């Protein structure tokens, strides 16, 4: 077993439901703690005992590969007993209501519940009915706090900090929980945020989020330190929000030509899974300016940090 982390940061709340409400100190504390786990994860011996005896349930109402896997790995590395439940293999499929599911789970005395749900606000609803800690692993188009934290960590490690950076978030802002969480985190940490999308993919009122708004990539990427691309769901591609894949890629897809509008040392991010040739060109996704693989690595470390920081606040910790 490894030594306990040097950081003694405690997230003084029971749940992590979103970035909204986190202070600059909260975010810095989580990122500092995550840095330590990045190092740990690169060792042969990756185990810690801080969550020994604890039960973590990953409850995914929406399919996910990387988020679910990284939460599972994070919990196991901290010594928790981790159980995965997904919508396809459970009674949720049989018509059980969200509240009934909560009551059932509560009876099993989990310590931490990690939840992803397709409806905005569903995680908060569950949290209000449970005795354990709840971590939002993505709710509808609302928040995905651990994604924003791992993005923040990735940027901080590559740019030395977040203060004063210009981050362009591009694509389907309207439906993106990643965009909302990132806007809040980046604003809190002193970065400038610009959203870039066709007007059909921008939520009305977005300009009141403290972001700059651009409709075209040349204007939107000008001077950007970070270019963060978002996934465009297939059902939104053909005529409903944008006319076609080819038009979307032509005007808003990130290729080398458009990336050149950003700063020469700009870095490219994508929360995954990518639609190559829709929102991002393979040459850019796999290129020297891409941080996409590093984001996945940071995902495990950040989720360990969140689990650790919340667990320090659990009863009998």
């Amino acid at each position: 077993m490894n030594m306990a982390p040097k950081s003694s940061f405690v997230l003084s709340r029971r749940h992590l439901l979103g970035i909204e409400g986190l202070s600059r100190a909260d975010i810095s504390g989580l990122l500092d703690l995550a840095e330590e786990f990045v190092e740990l994860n690169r060792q042969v011996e990756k185990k810690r005992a801080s969550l020994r005896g604890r039960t973590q349930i990953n409850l995914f109402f929406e399919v996910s590969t990387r988020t679910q896997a990284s939460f599972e790995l994070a919990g196991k590395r901290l010594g928790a007993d981790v159980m995965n439940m997904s919508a396809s293999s459970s009674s949720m499929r049989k018509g059980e209501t969200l509240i009934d599911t909560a009551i059932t789970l509560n009876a099993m005395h989990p310590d931490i519940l990690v939840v992803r749900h397709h409806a905005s606000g569903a995680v908060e609803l569950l949290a209000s009915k449970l005795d354990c800690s709840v971590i939002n692993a993505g709710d509808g188009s609302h928040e995905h706090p651990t994604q924003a934290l791992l993005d923040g960590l990735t940027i901080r490690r590559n740019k030395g900090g977040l203060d004063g950076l210009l981050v362009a978030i591009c694509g389907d802002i309207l439906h993106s929980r990643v965009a909302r969480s990132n806007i809040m985190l980046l604003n809190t940490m002193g970065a400038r945020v610009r959203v870039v999308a066709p007007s059909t993919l921008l939520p009305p009122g977005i300009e009141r989020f403290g972001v700059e708004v651009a409709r075209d990539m040349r204007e939107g990427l000008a001077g950007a330190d970070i270019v963060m691309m978002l996934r465009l769901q297939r059902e939104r591609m053909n005529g409903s929000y944008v006319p076609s894949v080819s038009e979307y890629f032509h005007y808003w897809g990130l290729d080398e030509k458009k990336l050149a509008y950003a700063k020469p040392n700009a870095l490219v991010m994508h929360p995954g899974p990518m639609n190559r040739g829709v929102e991002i060109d393979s040459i850019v996704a796999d290129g020297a300016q891409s941080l996409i693989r590093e984001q996945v690595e940071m995902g495990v470390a950040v989720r360990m940090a969140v689990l650790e920081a919340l667990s320090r606040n659990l009863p009998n910790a």
Partner: protein
Amino acid sequence: MMMLSERRPILLANARIVDPSRDLDFPGDLLIADGAIREAKKGIGAAGVPEGTEVIDCRGKLVAPGLVDMRAFIGEPGAASRETFASASQAAAAGGVTTIICQPDTSPAIDDPATVDFVLRRARDTAIVHVHPMAALTKGLQGAEMTEIGLLKAAGAVAFTDGEKSVTNAQVMRRALTYAGDFDALIVHHTEDPDLIGDGVMNEGEFAARLGLLGIPKAAETVMLERDIRLVALSGGRYHAASVSCAESLEVLARAKQAGLKVTASASINHITLNENDIGPYRTFLKVAPPLRAEDDRQRLVEALAEGLLDVIMSDHNPQDVETKRLPFAEAAPGAIGLETMLTAGLRLVHSGELDLMKLLRAMSTRPAELLGLPGGSLRSGAAADLIVIDPDLPWVLDPAELKSKCKNTPFDEARMTGRVVRTIVAGRTVYELV
């Protein structure tokens, strides 16, 4: 473009020059060289022109910008028996139209960049006037999914419309307006609610009742227009009502303009010169969409043109074969040809004192060119030499057999006219001359 005459300099001498783009109306000469207007002023004279200039005496005649017809159906691709770019452009030249805006409700519909490209090439090779297409607003004109507005505009589409079809799904319309706004693309919409049209075939009211025909209420138009205005307010796009026909629509339009929305509108030459009574004994050539309304409505449309509330007069040129027109009124296809007659019909309003010449010409040239971002509609120095010479007082009788359009479904057949285009010049070349 076909070479009908050498492109040597032309001096239009001793004319009355009318330029609605600058509100100028003065006696003078106009010199054309290298496809552009060199200058228009008093007393250029034969001495002040380059060697080899063709001098045309225009005493007693008007020189005005060529007309830009914002709505004409041409049968290519898919209905070449009704009209081709070649035949339409001959008709246009004879009517003083130097730019035709063709509609996308063809077969296949003009809804992808390759078809826009086809239209532009085909027109370039066969037409004697300029042709620019509007592209479909929704794929296959189905009203469900928006087209590639950005790529279509880049390919040369000047605006987006579903032609004679209305987009009934408000969500589709909202998103299209929102998306088009990013490209500063103009959406042109036929505002007739198909459910309210139902089986109606002419204006609803006493006259329809007497003829035993089902009526189309004015509300079919105003309901759709009103909806669209709300959506424009929501989305901020550029919107043009394709064909308004009644006084109530003008009220809606006035409110939208007062609110500062980017809203404009056209009326067809038919609606400003004819009314439902002209249908008489079931004349199917006067069956159009939207239907001809009452005389009060026609008068309000003309007043709105004079006030500048109504922006554009278009031909709504829609060639129909005898097989689609020689039928009982209710079964006949709607549509009338108009490229060749829109100016001469419009001059009726000038001669009757209802509308002044400047305003008529502005609505047929300067305004549509501005809305579509096209050259033309002006006699400024340096402007494209697309212009017409009009004999404003020439009396003549319209003989359908002489019309250049492939179809002869004109509401003005055998009508007495006063005033006619005697010469049409496109890009500095004479493409039509009345002999």
